[in-house]
């Protein structure tokens, strides 16, 4: 079983990201589970969402403390929250930042992928909502979900031009990170 923890802020779509990543994984033939850190957080407050991937039925219901993967939706979170807490050695972190020279308290053995998802989201969607962009990066970095499954998940959630734009944002991130991976 592999585990993903998504760090974001209220309103950035972290819960939707967890749901869509899990849906894409399920579409790809994996048993998946997605759930939010249940809270009363309002817009702007740090939030978490979780995804598990397994080849068997998932029974475990605890939150995720030792993730294989993390996604950090907002670089300002790194000062607020210990986003790397408990990460497994060999884990992967996808961090939205415009500073490719990103440097922080990264644990030993954790591989970092940085991507300027905010700029991509602004260019493709016109709003700084980075969740779908980061899904593309996650797909490329981890291989847990296929790009076509992700596209299917996005088209299932969004319709019309919104779907096209989100797919495009995810693809751009996928190609960028895929090139780096």
């Amino acid at each position, binding site marked *: 079983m592999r585990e993903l923890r998504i760090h974001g802020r209220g309103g950035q779509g972290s819960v939707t990201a967890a749901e869509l990543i899990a*849906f894409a994984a*399920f579409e790809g033939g994996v048993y998946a589970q*997605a759930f939010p850190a249940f809270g009363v957080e309002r817009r702007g407050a740090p939030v978490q969402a979780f995804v598990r991937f397994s080849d068997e039925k998932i*029974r475990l219901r605890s939150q995720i403390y030792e993730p294989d993967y993390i996604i950090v939706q907002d670089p300002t979170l790194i000062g607020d929250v210990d986003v790397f807490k408990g990460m497994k050695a060999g884990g992967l972190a996808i961090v939205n930042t415009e500073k490719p020279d990103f440097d922080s308290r990264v644990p030993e053995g954790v591989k970092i992928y940085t991507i300027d998802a905010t700029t991509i989201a602004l260019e493709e969607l016109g709003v700084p909502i980075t969740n779908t962009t980061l899904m593309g990066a996650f797909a490329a970095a981890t291989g847990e979900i296929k790009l076509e499954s992700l596209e299917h998940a996005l088209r299932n959630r969004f319709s019309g031009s919104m779907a096209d734009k989100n797919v495009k944002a995810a693809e751009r991130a996928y190609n960028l990170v895929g090139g780096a991976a």
Partner: protein
Amino acid sequence: MLEFMEGSHAVAEIVKRCRPQVIAAYPITPQTHIVEDLAQMVANCEIDAEYITVESEFSALSACLGASAAGSRVYSATTSQGLALMFEVCFNAAGMRQPIVMTIANRSLGAPLSIWNDQQDSISLRDSGWLQFYAEDNQEAADLHMIAYKVCEDHDILLPAFVCFDGFILTHTYEPVALPSQEEVDAYLPAFSPYQRLDAADPLSLGMYATPEYYMEFRYEVDRAMQRAKQAFIKAGREFGERFGRDYSGLVEGYRLEDADTALVAMGSICGTAKDAIDEMREHGRKVGLLNIRVFRPFPAQEIADALKDVSTVAVLDKNISLGNGGAVGIEVKTALYGSGIPVYDYIIALGGRDVRKRDIAAVVDLAEKGEGDIFYGLRTEVL
């Protein structure tokens, strides 16, 4: 066929396929997604039902009672404070023998205010005359609604039921669920056939008051119907298994109990985490098993005694507390095992949404095997 969806949506989908004619509900976290989904289905004409946007939970259940008495299949959902506000109607609906099915998205009760999960709400209504079923996962949560209608509407039963599933932990979790088609649900659950109904063509007075000459006998009859509900559940659960391949003929369900020395006893989603923890403990040679109480009312005392007769230690995980006397499930399991000589230790755990990890389950087993129990597990003593 498995589909990937939120627990609340799975429940709403299956409720839709159970064809209630009247839905009355009041929004409360974490039940909201269920009733929002149903309201949308009504708005889309996907379901042939009246959705009454009542002004309180008290009225939600009162409206369900009226609609049920008028001969319609009804549905509601609530949790926590909302269920507490329904307290009076709960007793009334059971005494009036209305087969209402209501989802409980289990949540703690204030004070202090908490929106998070435990099972204090439904367990506090254990004496109200409602059947109580607890789901371990979202598949079971969906399936138990069909079984609940079937059992409740049986003319030998005629009692209401709570289908309980853990708030947030299940309601807000997305996972794969297999939902029977409308045709399959219809074949399993025929149209509602009321035992009696308010009808100008055949008038009757329903819900009269009883003097001391009659009251006890009415209560006796409700209790007898409760007792009969055990067999009705087993039958409905078996038929469900035959049709859909998921067997629910057990009021309780054992996991790796056959050769277990220590048995955990629990209800709801914590059983999933416990099963994973048990597998790990088994890898280290620890003979641990689990008894999942699926049906808490009627209480399967004999089934529990039979299932646990060969273990040497029992550890009950109680997501509730009967303040002043420990956890409600623990108290009842002790009663069920009275005279067996098997020690039963109770652990008040995970109140108000405190997360439970595999290592917590293992720690409880350690405590029980050391003979330390009847405690709050995981108290943060540093804040006391």
